[in-house]
């Protein structure tokens, strides 16, 4: 039998469920339960916590020990990958409106509900029409709501971008300094090459080629490491928050950007380092 204290949670969850009906998708198929008994759906988090499965019967009641209505679990739903819900630990239940009214003891009263328009309909026009006709509430297009609710994430996104830019600039300076130092460490080799007749352009080409190869291999290794790190992060946090949300992503465009940037920086660093060396006399390079 369904534990009664959990029903209160179910009721609260049901109220929340009303606001975002499209954020869930069924993972267990609905079962035809017949006309005699009505059905609900629960999310997999609740199913796992309460040990419920499709076909189980539960009692919907506003309080423990109160009279309720027996319902059957028709489907188990999985949450969508919505970052705004990751940290929330509530359960989600879909139930009939009259059940919800009974549970919340607020008959004929809802806070929010969603209206799905036909695909060809313009959401802005639909919401304008509703607002014109309705009294006591306002309708918003889903895109507008999404923009409003994702404001925090846009700030976070900008913050991440800023961190990314700072990291790239700092890495570029670091890479440049390392390349200059590493090339300078080989000034004797370069001096010897110049003494035996290697032209300045040959030396520059060799240094730039080597720096480019190191950058290319380094960036590919870095992308591989990043992919592995993101896999570990996702594996860990998806488990912690029981969500399919991907917390870290390495997309092909990110890899292409990283490799291109690294290669560009490698070429520039190699060019600067090589130019710095070949400007000096060969004898000076070998320390004479």
């Amino acid at each position, binding site marked *: 039998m369904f534990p009664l204290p959990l029903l209160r949670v179910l009721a609260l969850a049901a109220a929340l469920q009303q606001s975002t009906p499209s954020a869930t998708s069924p993972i267990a198929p609905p079962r035809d339960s017949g006309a005699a008994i009505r059905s609900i759906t629960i999310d997999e988090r609740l199913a796992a916590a309460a040990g419920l499965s499709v076909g189980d019967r539960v009692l919907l009641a506003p309080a423990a020990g109160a009279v309720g209505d027996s319902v059957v679990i028709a489907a188990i739903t999985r949450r969508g990958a919505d970052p705004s819900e990751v940290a929330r630990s509530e359960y989600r239940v879909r139930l009939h409106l009259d059940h919800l009214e009974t549970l919340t003891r607020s008959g004929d009263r809802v806070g929010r509900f969603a209206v799905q328009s036909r695909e060809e309909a313009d959401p802005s026009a639909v919401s304008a029409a509703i607002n014109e006709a309705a009294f006591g509430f306002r309708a918003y297009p889903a895109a507008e709501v999404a923009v409003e609710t994702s404001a925090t994430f846009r700030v976070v996104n900008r913050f991440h971008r800023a961190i990314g830019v700072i990291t790239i600039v700092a890495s570029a300076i670091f890479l440049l300094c390392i390349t200059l130092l590493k090339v300078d460490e080989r000034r*004797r080799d370069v001096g010897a090459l110049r*003494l*035996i007749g290697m032209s300045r352009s040959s030396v520059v080409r060799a240094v730039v080629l080597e720096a480019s190869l190191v950058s290319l291999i380094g960036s590919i290794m870095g992308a591989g490491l990043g992919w592995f790190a993101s896999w570990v992060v996702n594996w860990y946090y998806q488990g912690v928050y029981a969500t399919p949300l991907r917390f870290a992503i390495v997309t092909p465009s990110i890899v292409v950007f990283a490799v291109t940037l690294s290669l560009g920086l490698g070429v520039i660093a190699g060019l600067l380092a090589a130019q710095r060396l070949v400007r000096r006399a060969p004898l000076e390079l*070998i320390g004479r």
Partner: protein
Amino acid sequence: MREIVLAARDVRRDYPVVGEPVHAVRGISLDVAAGDWVAVVGPSGCGKSTLLNLLGAIDRPTAGSISIRGKDVARMNDAEATRFRLTGIGFVFQRFYLMPTLTASENVELPMSEAKVPRAQRVARARELLTYVGLGARADHRPYQLSGGEQQRVAIARALANQPALLLADEPTGELDARTGTEMIALFDRLNRDGTTIVTVTHDEELAQAARRVVHMKDGAIVDQVVRRPLGDDAPAARGATA
């Protein structure tokens, strides 16, 4: 009459420093004929290495002329001098200066690659030169896998890669132990007997004794010249070892 490979006339090299300039080389004139082996000796700071740098188109004289196979190296610009060092002169340094990431064979191929010698040709010549210096079996070894003497042999093979008119060696035995130094002298002797024109700067008395002609320098000038073996005398000069 042998061809004069190197002709230096009244060569001077002054270094501008605060106060009085330093006169490193003071009006040196020197002829080196094809097939000759000249050892330049003298105390430290007498101008030996400066002279060698001038003869090798590494540095430019303040005055005078230096002609190698008829080309005035003193008047060459940097690009011309670099090209001339590549094809006209072979250098052997005290510290070998081999590329650590390349094999012995690749080190020898390097100047030929820069001179645009076709790959098959330069691989064959590198093998031939390494065999000549006694390292045919170690062509694929990297410098760190070779002893000091072996590295210097590779450096000599590299210096000969583009068949230069003149081989210049700056203290070629300076980093080697006595036995390896003797082996190196024997190799220079064989090179010379096979027709290579050599100018060495050295403190090594044994190396100087092996040369055909010894030029003594002091305070930037030549103070004495001793012909030990005239050109045409092809008896082995090095004692103790054969290359």
